[in-house]
């Protein structure tokens, strides 16, 4: 018997497109993980339950990309931030609708999906 994963990457981005971030919580030790994994890195058990997140967090670090990879040339400059979410996990995403010179570590932000060409990526906008 093989157990299906509790949430696949495809599930994650389908839910993200609808506006909800999903992490998984370990039923043994309570650790939260995102993205999901087979084994809990903290206690090595495999007892995950998907849990929705609020999407609220603060900027842990950020940068403004000015020299972009070939496929993003026309979008530069753009900001990317690692956001510490309220629940205790972090997520990296594009900053949208916040002036580049207003960015700061500790700035409150809120998850906002970015869907383009049928692909959803993680974004963060004003809280």
């Amino acid at each position, binding site marked *: 018997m093989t157990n299906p994963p509790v949430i696949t*990457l495809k599930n994650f981005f389908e839910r993200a497109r609808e506006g909800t971030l999903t992490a998984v919580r370990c039923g043994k030790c309570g650790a939260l993980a*995102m*993205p999901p994994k087979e084994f809990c890195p903290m206690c090595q058990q495999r007892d995950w339950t998907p849990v929705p997140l609020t999407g609220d967090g603060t900027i*842990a*670090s*950020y*940068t*403004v*990309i*000015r*020299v*972009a*990879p*070939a*496929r*993003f*040339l026309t*979008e*530069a400059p*753009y900001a*990317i931030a*690692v956001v510490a979410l309220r629940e205790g*996990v*972090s*997520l*990296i*995403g*594009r900053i949208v609708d916040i002036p580049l010179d207003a960015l700061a*570590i500790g700035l409150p932000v809120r998850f906002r999906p970015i869907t383009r060409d049928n*692909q959803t*990526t*993680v974004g963060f906008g004003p809280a």
Partner: protein
Amino acid sequence: MMESDGEGGSYMRRVAVIGVGVTKFGKHERSSAELFAEAARDALADADIGPAAVQALYYGNVVGGETEKQLHMGPQAASVLGIPTIPTTRFETACASSHAAFRHAVMEIAAGVSDIVLVGGAERVLTVPTAESTEYFAYASDATWEQPLGLTFPGVFALVARAHMAKYGTTEEQMAAVAVKNHRHGALNPKAQFQKEITLEQVLTSAYVADPLKLYDCCPFTDGGAAIVLASEEIARRRPRAVWVLGSAAASDSMLMQEKKDLARVPTTERAAAVAYRQAGLGPADIDVAELHDCFTIAEIVATEGLGLFEPGTGGFAAEKGWTSLGGKLPVNPSGGLKSKGHPIGATGAAQIAEITTQLRGEAGPRQVEGARFGLTHTLGGNLATVLVSVFGRD
């Protein structure tokens, strides 16, 4: 049997570097295999052995599939060198590739499988425009979570820099001091891509690439090759220029920047260093000279801290005070580092080992660290996700 790396087991047999070779770093018109063959030719001559003595090749390359449309580079490199029948393996751990190859080659000799092994790597990236190479290098970040955002390699280290500045008060001037120092060293290295000094002003007024990192905080794109000849103790002990491998360790971590517990530290460096020091029976205070991974100026700062050479948060201060300069209390990157010598990613680890070997032999000329007895190399791959640390000594 050797224990797992995490335990830092000791080697069954001692292993030494008996020959090194490095091409000029910069732009080349030859294939990466040709560049490696040139470095290997020089390494074999330096070791005073013929190609027929080589029993295996451990090879590093990263983006050859993209920039040269070439895979299966181990046999290709061995063929171009003229020894096509030896066993070969290509290693890819992003920018740490040839240092990973080195560690495995050391283990092959330590285990008694071979007595003489060739290690090295080569890279060609100046075949493509900057936007294209920037994209290929970004393949070393996560394809689901990071690449679709447009995260670049300078962007990864910019996230580290911003966190380090916030946590410890590190300044853009301190980062710039690393660039100025490494260019000063590189001006003394005839193999370096940039053999010219730069000023603090030039660094601070250069254009932002990924804030807070500017053009002169970043290493260049580079073509080049490097090779090392490794030998067992039985062969090496008859050679007075042999440099002993006292320890060689690898550590990994999650690739995802969002899973780093503290963006201002590099735990992979801390873990690999702890194992390598334990294998060598040495500590950071014993190290006389270090070649470490300064792909960006902040990378050198966090590497000096993770290796225990300076306290966490004080790496920028140490650079600004001149402690890491030639003539300072602990010279770092006398070769010019990735910043000035250049960073042909698949060759970088082997080139660092070549420099430390040259330093410990006392053959580094105007960039010699006087009396160096113990040296260290540190190479970082990808989003801080792979680190190799090796420790070397002379009798």
